[in-house]
């Protein structure tokens, strides 16, 4: 039998940087500081780091070892990776569908977000924001996402971004993904350090700043210990760990499936995971908030963070950079949006590999064909997020694929690993070829503590999931209004949201069907799961 999937990593550093790049995303810079402000300031770091140690690190160990284990049997996507750990129960491969579904659905909206950064780099270079007021720059962003100028520029950058991702993926792991990670990650850290230095050294009264950069740091890091025992804060911390590490997605397993059987995964997992924490906590907390508070003051920034970090990052920072003069503004714009772009593309490339791995393993597609199939799929799936962004389709994808699915899949995989595959075998897998001694306490944590935390996160999220399914917030808004235009708008929004859910369900069913076809093909060809 000929193997169509003969990918491999070129170097260990390349693998670690690619894995770190997979984890580092726009959320490191836009979401983490906002979460910290909203959940106890400096005290947020305590539940955050506890969740990292008790949930993030165990899941990293599990996903890396699951991937390497499955790769031994020639599997590079989660349906057959998870099934190889319990080959007698065929249903696992349908649980593994989450590992392809999530990547496709998240990539669909994530590439759109990534394309904004490309556009903003262009506008920073072209000097489009020079001489504009804060409102004009804010309106530019609103116009950009609402396609008010016909949407040509928005669509152009989105398509360009899709083509760029597809082209890099078609070059393979060592020839494409790894090269981008080796260039992108060091540049991202360099840009981050430069902006962080500028952010924390802002001086009140200079270049239009009303506060020192340390005022923002002080606000972000002052601990409010009364929040430590709040379940909401712990849920936010656990959620942030999920977002930031890209666990529960299936992309880590895919990358790790190309690691040789006797090569280390424990040290690699720690290095990539902690690198992500460095970017998030050290760099992520030193840019957005210090600069924004330096120019706008605490009250205004708190108001702006109510709608998340996207507004601050795209509507506000380009204006604040203008206060530094034309040249420095252009350089800061390139650094900030360049940093976000590299954070984005190293993640979106990771989202492409599981889908490609599946097509190459099961249907013997060539790498280029698989890359273009991925590109086409995210074009079709992403189109509604571009056209109906304002109707909430983008957020809906993010909620179901980028939030709920992660928790569901992570819960399933930890049960499989610790309780079905067996903790003794699992522990052996984690330690096979390890270049560090994994503390034995993690055996207990993986078996008992992490499943409990994940179960709690899942069950605590159920009321919110129910509210979403029933459109409770929109229905409440309907009851509050008598304006026919508003009623129509809310009804339209509900239709768009329901439509996007149908699309996501259809995607999950379609992938499940492909997995079924692949399984039947394996049976017919006499190829087992293990």
């Amino acid at each position, binding site marked *: 039998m000929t193997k169509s999937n003969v990918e491999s990593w070129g170097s*260990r*550093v390349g693998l*670690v940087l690619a894995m770190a790049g997979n984890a580092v995303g726009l959320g490191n810079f836009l979401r983490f500081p906002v979460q910290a402000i909203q959940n106890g*300031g*400096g*005290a947020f*770091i305590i539940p955050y*780091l506890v969740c990292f140690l008790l949930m993030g690190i165990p899941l990293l160990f599990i996903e890396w070892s699951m991937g390497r284990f499955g790769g031994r049997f020639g599997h590079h996507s989660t349906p057959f990776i998870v099934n190889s750990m319990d080959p007698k129960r065929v249903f696992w491969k349908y649980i593994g569908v989450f590992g392809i579904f999530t990547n496709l659905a998240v990539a669909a909206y994530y590439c759109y977000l990534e394309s904004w950064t490309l556009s903003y780099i262009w506008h920073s270079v072209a000097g489009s924001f020079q001489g504009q007021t804060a409102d004009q720059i804010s309106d530019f962003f609103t116009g950009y996402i609402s396609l008010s100028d016909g949407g040509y520029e928005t669509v152009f950058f989105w398509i360009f971004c899709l083509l760029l991702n597809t082209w890099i993926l078609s070059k393979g792991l060592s020839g494409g993904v790894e090269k981008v990670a080796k260039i992108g990650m060091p540049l991202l850290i360099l840009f981050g350090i430069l902006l962080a230095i500028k952010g924390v050294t802002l001086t009140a009264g200079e270049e239009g700043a009303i506060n020192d950069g*340390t005022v923002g*740091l*002080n606000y*972000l*890091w*002052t*601990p409010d210990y009364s929040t430590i025992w709040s379940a909401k804060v712990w849920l936010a911390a656990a959620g942030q760990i999920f977002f930031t590490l890209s666990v529960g997605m299936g992309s880590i397993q895919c990358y790790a499936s190309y690691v040789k*059987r*006797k*090569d*280390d995964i424990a*040290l*690699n997992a*720690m*290095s990539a995971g*902690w*690198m992500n*924490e*460095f970017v998030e*906590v*050290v760099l992520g*907390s030193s840019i957005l908030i210090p600069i924004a508070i330096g120019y706008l003051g605490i009250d205004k920034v708190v108001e702006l963070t109510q709608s998340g970090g996207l507004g601050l990052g795209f509507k506000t920072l380009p204006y604040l950079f203008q206060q530094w003069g034309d040249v420095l503004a252009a350089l800061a714009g390139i650094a900030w949006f360049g940093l976000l772009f590299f954070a984005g593309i190293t993640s979106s490339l990771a989202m492409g590999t599981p889908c490609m791995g599946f097509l190459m393993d099961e249907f013997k597609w060539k790498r280029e064909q698989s890359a273009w199939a991925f590109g086409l799929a995210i074009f079709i799936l992403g189109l509604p997020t571009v056209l109906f962004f304002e109707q909430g389709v983008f957020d809906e994808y993010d909620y179901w694929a980028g939030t709920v699915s992660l928790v569901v899949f992570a819960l399933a995989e930890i049960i499989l690993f610790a309780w079905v595959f067996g903790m003794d075998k699992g522990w*052996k897998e984690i330690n*096979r*070829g390890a*270049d*560090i001694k994994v503390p034995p306490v993690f055996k207990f944590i993986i078996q008992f503590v992490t499943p409990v935390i994940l179960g709690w996160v899942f069950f605590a999220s159920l009321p919110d999931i129910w509210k979403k399914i029933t459109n409770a917030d929109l229905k409440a808004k309907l009851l509050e209004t008598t304006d026919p235009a508003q009623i129509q708008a809310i009804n339209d929004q509900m239709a768009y949201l329901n439509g996007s859910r149908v699309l996501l369900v259809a995607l999950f069913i379609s992938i499940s069907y492909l997995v079924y076809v692949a399984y039947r093909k394996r049976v017919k060809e006499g190829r087992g799961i293990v």
Partner: protein
Amino acid sequence: MNSEALIMMIAAEGIITAVTIYFFYKVLTVPPKPEPDSYSENDDD
């Protein structure tokens, strides 16, 4: 910055930076494993 915020920031960022550098340094310096030279080395434990 007030002392509580300063302590919290220096402690969190210091620990994270130190651990990140430690692990990445190990990745760079641990010698690669020799390739398996026999079928027996590829067998299951």
